[in-house]
């Protein structure tokens, strides 16, 4: 029915044309849901040391523990079920990535809108900061910050926010500058609506598509970055292993044939990141106004 043909519905219809992207989206949603529900669905709570038995350590995939629990993906050195460890690790990764993404998006959007709106000196100052920020490698910034602040979930969220906000700021500014010149904004000015309302109610919603694309890609990036940092041992605390830490933990055994401790978390990380990126690419195609019909 035509009445229901909202921009969102059109977007969904366009998105569905690419079967690979739909597959990736379904996969991602499944991974995400499983990770969020990990405390209900995983066979074991890998953080609860009382449930672990060192005697069950390094069992290969398919083997059962002493109390009969089957380790479908094997167990790690401390006797953790890898399935459970991966799901809990994914949850941690997602929480960190999404929290930092949301904060970074909020900060970046405000900065970008302010730059586009005020122009002149404000714009120059803010955007030069963004340029400087973007000229440093992300990993370097993270390492320096974590070295200063120390470890911890909160600290790594802060580090990821510091790394990411500039991407959002730059994207929002670019699209706000384009939108600001469109005739519908002039019409709103002509209707004597206050500038703040024009900025947030008229311009911002039209800047969302590129923001969503950047957000998707940034989530994948920060999952990867967090994994890297944890792998290097400066990320999340060892008591709540994220994927990166799991991979690092298994690394020492990999040459002795105990591949699964590193391998399966690695596959989980790869599949997650690839599915997010596939979704992101499709979003970019669908939401790009120049490709839009």
């Amino acid at each position, binding site marked *: 029915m035509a009445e229901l043909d909202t921009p969102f519905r059109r977007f969904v219809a366009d998105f569905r044309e690419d079967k690979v992207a739909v597959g990736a989206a379904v996969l991602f949603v499944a991974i995400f849901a499983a990770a969020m529900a990990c405390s209900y669905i995983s066979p074991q709570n890998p953080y609860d040391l009382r449930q672990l038995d060192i005697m069950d350590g390094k069992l290969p995939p398919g083997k059962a523990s002493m109390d009969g629990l089957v380790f479908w993906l094997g167990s790690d050195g401390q006797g953790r079920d890898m399935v459970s460890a991966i799901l809990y690790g994914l949850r941690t990764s997602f929480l960190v990535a999404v929290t930092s993404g949301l904060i970074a998006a909020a900060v970046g959007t405000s900065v970008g809108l302010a730059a586009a709106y005020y122009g002149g000196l404000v714009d120059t100052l803010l955007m030069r900061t963004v340029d400087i920020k973007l000229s440093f490698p992300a990993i370097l910034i993270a390492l320096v910050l974590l070295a200063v602040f120390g470890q911890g979930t909160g600290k790594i969220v802060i580090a990821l926010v510091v790394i990411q906000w500039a991407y959002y700021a730059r994207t929002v500014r670019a699209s706000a500058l384009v939108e600001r010149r469109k005739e519908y904004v*002039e019409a709103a000015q002509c209707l*004597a609506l206050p500038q703040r309302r024009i900025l947030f109610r008229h311009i911002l*919603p039209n800047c969302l598509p590129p923001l969503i694309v950047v957000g998707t890609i940034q989530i994948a990036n920060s999952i990867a970055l967090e994994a890297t940092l944890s792998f290097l041992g400066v990320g999340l605390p060892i008591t709540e292993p994220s994927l990166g830490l799991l991979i690092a933990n298994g690394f020492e055994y990999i040459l002795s044939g105990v591949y699964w401790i590193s391998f399966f978390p690695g596959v989980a990380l790869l599949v997650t990141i690839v599915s997010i990126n596939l979704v992101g690419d499709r979003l970019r195609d669908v939401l790009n106004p120049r490709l839009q019909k």
Partner: protein
Amino acid sequence: MATPIVELKDVSKRFVKSLDMAGKLAAKLGANVREETVHAVDRVSLSVAEGEVVGLVGESGCGKSTLGRIVAGILPQTQGEVLYRGQPLSALSGQARVKAALAVQMIFQDPYASLNPRMRVADIIGEAPLYHGLTDKAGEVAYLDETMRRVGLDPAYKKRYPHQFSGGQRQRIGIARALAVKPEFVVCDESVAALDVSIQAQILNLFMELRAALNLTYLFISHDLGVVRHLSDRVVIMYLGRVVEEGNTDDLFANPNHPYTVALLGEIPRLDTRKRVFVPVKGEIPSPLNPPGGCHFHPRCPHAMARCSVEAPVLREIAPGRRAACHLNDAS
């Protein structure tokens, strides 16, 4: 004479394309980059009386839209004064300023870009009157329905988004949005140019109906002389930012004075002239970045004299109600 509803006094608008940091550096190093200034509108004076339709004509880039936007309060002028009912807009503040702003509305050229793609028709039309208290939550629906009916839109469509409408319908939405704040003066900037021929007539008829019903005053910007002639009481011709001729429509079409007006009228293809031999105006439209000195039209003017390239002619009265800016008028 009664106070004009809108009056421009010596209004100019300059756009300066300033150099970015790289440009400044390059300029310091002797590269040939400069700040570029466009005189989009150059000392234009114009007054529009209540109930009048003034047509504004000129070629691309001559400053019609810029002038329209200044009148509509979207762009600030660089110089000069815009008066609303005799009061300079710059002297108004608070409620009086909002009132003056709402009194002058604009209808745009592009039926696509001029509507916010993420808003429903109900919000596009209804936002401003609700915000400014022209209606309240209780009366909003009735107000919206009435406004939509007035421009020939079915109120059943109000939940739809702009992309679900045809070009002509979108233009009606734009008109409804302007009418919703009860304007007295409407600037129409090429408002039918993007529409199909058969739809143009529908929208032009709507403009004429609304004018009669709501006692509107129009500044009607168009490059289509046929349309302007049909609608306007008075016509203003612009060339490269300046007004070159102005007068009563019938007069001006019957007796164009300025050589540019003569050329422009000669170029209009007509239905009733078959297989005619075109006698084109020579030359291109000069770049507004670097307009010719003196009379801007002199490189293309068949009557150009030595004086024309050094001295800009002033716009002055050549007959009652007729003004033109050409040195030829001094000879007599």
